[in-house]
């Protein structure tokens, strides 16, 4: 009589993609689909999270992710407070646990955290009652980025299963790639990663992906190409001789795109280094969906805030 009961969200936190089931991923993507309409209204605000408090803790620089969360929070009518590294008590010598306990004392409903060290969001999640959303922890996970990438792919291709997705660039320092591999594998896409050997950690093959060491091999017949930023600030030792040489070998140009499928889409989590990993003609070209990713990021984060805010300690 009634259609099959849809699954309900029961996690207090969103810490990574690794622990999510395909059904949970689909629930987030479907919910985000409904929220995207709000961004097209004249009044871009719904009263859903009225009276909820969200803390945005960014212990690492971020423009896109932080403003995306902030906009998502405001469109849902939540009250938000921003903390960033400079000026925080951590700089004054407070331990992370003490920071967490102090935050808990302010009784927030949700905490968004980005931190340079993997596992910090997990530690926080265990210590506080509020729901915790990982906005990037070291080179470990960046679940909301992978979800907005999946949302963007689904919008263009109608599905994830069976697609060939090439992820290229600085694999070693990328949390985006790890979250994306987990997600795409779970949803039945075929992932190939490519980049210079010096930026390709050995454990990647164990994650169930193909590894290619030239750009052409990686993008052959690809439905989707994701370019990763070369994280110049994290390259302690020289992983390649020069930016110019990197661009010659791994930079995505129009000429090189010929190896991919005719309806390929090009993605980039941002910020882009034009002329390092991607040519301007590609970034601004007809296959690029890079700015759509940013738009969809708000819908996906609204969906996550909505779903998490319905889980209370008593029900966990």
């Amino acid at each position: 009589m009634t259609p099959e009961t849809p699954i309900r969200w029961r996690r207090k936190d969103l810490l990574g993609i690794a622990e999510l089931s395909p059904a949970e991923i689909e629930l987030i993507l479907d919910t985000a689909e409904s929220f995207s309409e709000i961004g097209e209204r004249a009044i871009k605000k719904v009263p859903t999270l009225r009276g909820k408090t969200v803390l945005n803790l960014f212990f690492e620089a971020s423009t896109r992710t932080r403003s995306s969360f902030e906009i998502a929070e405001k469109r849902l009518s939540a009250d938000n407070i921003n903390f960033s590294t400079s000026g925080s008590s951590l700089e004054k010598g407070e331990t992370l646990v003490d920071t967490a306990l102090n935050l808990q004392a302010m009784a927030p409903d949700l905490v968004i955290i980005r931190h340079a060290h993997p596992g910090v969001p997990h530690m926080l999640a265990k210590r506080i009652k509020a729901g915790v959303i990982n906005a990037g922890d070291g080179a470990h996970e960046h679940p909301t980025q992978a979800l907005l990438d999946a949302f963007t792919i689904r919008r263009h291709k109608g599905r994830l299963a069976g697609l060939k997705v090439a992820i290229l660039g600085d694999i070693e320092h990328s949390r985006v790639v790890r979250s994306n591999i987990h997600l795409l594998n779970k949803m039945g896409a075929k992932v190939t990663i490519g980049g210079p050997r010096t930026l390709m950690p050995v454990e990647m093959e164990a994650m169930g992906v193909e590894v290619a060491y030239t750009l052409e091999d990686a993008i052959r017949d690809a439905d989707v190409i994701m370019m990763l930023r070369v994280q110049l600030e994290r390259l302690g030792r020289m992983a390649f001789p020069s930016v110019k040489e990197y661009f010659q070998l791994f930079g995505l140009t129009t000429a090189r795109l010929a190896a991919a499928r005719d309806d390929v889409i090009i993605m980039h989590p941002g910020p882009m280094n034009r002329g390092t990993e991607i040519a301007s003609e590609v970034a601004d070209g007809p296959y690029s969906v890079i700015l759509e990713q940013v738009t969809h990021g708000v819908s996906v984060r609204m969906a996550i805030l909505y779903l998490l805010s319905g889980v209370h300690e008593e029900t966990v």
Partner: protein
Amino acid sequence: MAKNLTPKTTILDAKQMARIIRRMAGEIAERHHGNLGSVLLAGIRTRGVPLAEKIAAEIERMEGAKLPVGILDITLYRDDLSTVGPQPQVKGTHLPRSIDDCAVILCDDVLYTGRTVRAALDELIDFGRPRIVQLAVLIDRGHRELPIQADFVGKKVPTSQSEIIEVSFLSTDSTEQVRILERPTAK
């Protein structure tokens, strides 16, 4: 939804439903005579949507005017979201045109506490400023908790709080009828 519920009576069958919806469509057409071009039907998810579609089809048959039908998902405007329990699914709102200066007729299957209609009104106002908003419901079962009343009512059904009105449409439930179900009393 129909877990642990015992059916008591069928109050409307498909034929009676069709007759009532035809009468409601006639009333709406009469009330908006000469202005049908600015009327928009907005069905409240889930079963307000098939009701709105059926009313639109009847008005088209009678008057030859095809009224636009919108869909309102009031989930994000509910007043009970912070009570314990996982969030209900959001399926989205779609209004086919601007509602400014329109006559918007909200359609829902059952009018009970009035809280759904309150949420729908709040959502509607976020989309613009309609000339007038009216409410059409198939069943009015009483027990209002807010000062809200319907402009077009299919059937008034006195109920007790332990009863549930179940409206089924072919498009959503593969059968067409209205039943009263009884909630189990033992707790």
